[in-house]
């Protein structure tokens, strides 16, 4: 029996050939992607996992959305839960696992400035039910931090330079395009302004393709005010 409920109990079914291999499964709730906010799930049998979010973690199946992080090899798309009113549990089903490269990224800025990120996650084409497009977001420590479990095939990851609080509706520097697997990408302030301009011109900034001179000037002004000298983006694995 499905209904819209508010509960702190979550039951997760993971499908797919590799579901039996999973050792650690983490739940991301409502897009809060900071690693210490991930909720580690407890095994409840083969391919089944549960969690009790506690009173403070109570969620509404109508509004909340979820995604999973699997060990060190995959992430999932986002889903809404089906409410089981009888058991008072939010039930979720995810497919494991997209066979695309997974990267953990490290971002460092000089001088240290606040950096946030937003992930625009698309539903997986292999998902049978319940997948939705969603945004997830996180805050990096001042000047340095990591973005874990990125799979560019299914998400756009935007870096927001100079923002202390993530803005889920604001794009930024699209990382999918620019990270290099072998080594570290170093972008000077001018390089960042140029890269932002290129992404706008390519229509990757959630705006029509534009060669806006004013946008370039404002970017340049903003990064100068932040005294940002350079940003490093490194693939950790």
């Amino acid at each position, binding site marked *: 029996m499905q209904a819209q409920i508010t509960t702190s109990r979550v039951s997760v079914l993971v499908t797919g050939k590799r579901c039996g291999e999973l050792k650690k499964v983490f739940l991301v709730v409502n897009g809060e992607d900071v690693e210490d906010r991930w909720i580690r799930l407890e095994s409840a049998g083969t391919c089944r996992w549960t969690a009790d979010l506690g009173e403070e973690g109570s969620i509404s199946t109508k509004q909340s959305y979820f995604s999973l992080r699997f060990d060190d090899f995959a992430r999932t798309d986002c889903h809404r839960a089906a409410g089981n009113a009888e058991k008072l549990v939010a039930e979720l089903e995810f497919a494991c696992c997209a066979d695309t490269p997974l990267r953990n990224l490290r971002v460092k800025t000089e001088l240290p400035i606040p950096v946030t990120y937003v992930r625009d996650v698309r539903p997986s084409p292999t998902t049978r039910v319940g997948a939705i497009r969603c*945004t997830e977001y996180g805050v990096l420590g001042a000047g340095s931090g990591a973005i874990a479990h990125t799979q560019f095939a299914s998400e756009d990851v935007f870096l927001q330079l100079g923002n202390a609080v993530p*803005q889920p509706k604001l*794009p930024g520097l699209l990382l999918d395009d620019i990270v290099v697997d072998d080594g570290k990408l170093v972008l000077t302030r001018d390089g960042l*302004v*140029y890269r932002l301009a290129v992404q706008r*011109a390519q229509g990757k900034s959630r*705006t*029509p393709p534009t060669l806006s*001179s004013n946008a370039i000037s404002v970017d340049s002004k903003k990064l100068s005010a932040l005294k940002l000298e350079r940003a490093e983006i490194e693939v950790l694995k």
Partner: protein
Amino acid sequence: MIRTATILVAFLTAATALAQRPLFDPDDFLDPRETGGRPAFVSRVIIGGASNMSGDGFRPLGKQTGYVHLSNSFYWRSLQFDYKRSETRAVDGEAAQWQRQERTPVRNATPESKDTLNAAWYWPVPTGGGIPVMLRSRVTFTRQSTENELLTAGAPMQWSVRERTVALDTDTWFRIGRHDVFGSLAVSETKATGAPNGLPGNRKERALTYTNRFPSFSYDRARIMIRPTLTVGGISNRGGSAVNLVNPAIEIFRPFIRTGANLHVIYSPQWAVDANDRWQTTHQVAVYVDRALFVKVFGATPAR
């Protein structure tokens, strides 16, 4: 100065561009999310030259044209207001020349400064849970006068024509599969008045155009971007079918971040039907440099 009387086939071709921005008017799209909706002001100067330019919605000035353009843009929340002033002159300092037919008098038309006011608003389009797409709609009002002179055997006749254009353009967006398709839809009306009876210059014309804005290419070693666009449209009082304008363009853009200057090289051939139901071609080429004179984002306190 006075060469063989130029038959400006672009009399009509020029007007085809009424619904478009002048070639030398650089993009000024500024996503309000970037400034957090804070007020921002950018003043910019543009200097350049063009060949066969008809993109200012005015009579061409001849083969070679120079121009100076000053643009002032004020952004606040989801709104944008602009005041722009343009000076366009033929390289040899002469006015445009017209001769409708052989053995008719030559007409010189010297444009004065063009003033443009824009009001625009940005509006987000939901993407079903993802980051919204930000589009812009804009109303444009332009005004320009022309001093005309008819070279006849006797004393030359002189008169002024006032031209006003009102245009509305809006960005469009839809998806085909995983691909975004962006464009701009524009409607405009231009009215030129003031010419005495029997003398040329008065006209009224409406245009409806769609410009597809393809994603740009970049060549990072040289730090250049290449942007293709394609405009098609229909203009009233013309021959041909509903579509009597085809205007592709390719723009090579090189920002010089350190100096704040940007170089633009544009090639924009324009095919349009004239009043005699014939397709005419104009090969427009423009080169210009723009540079911000003043940039201010008010209330921007960088978070540290």
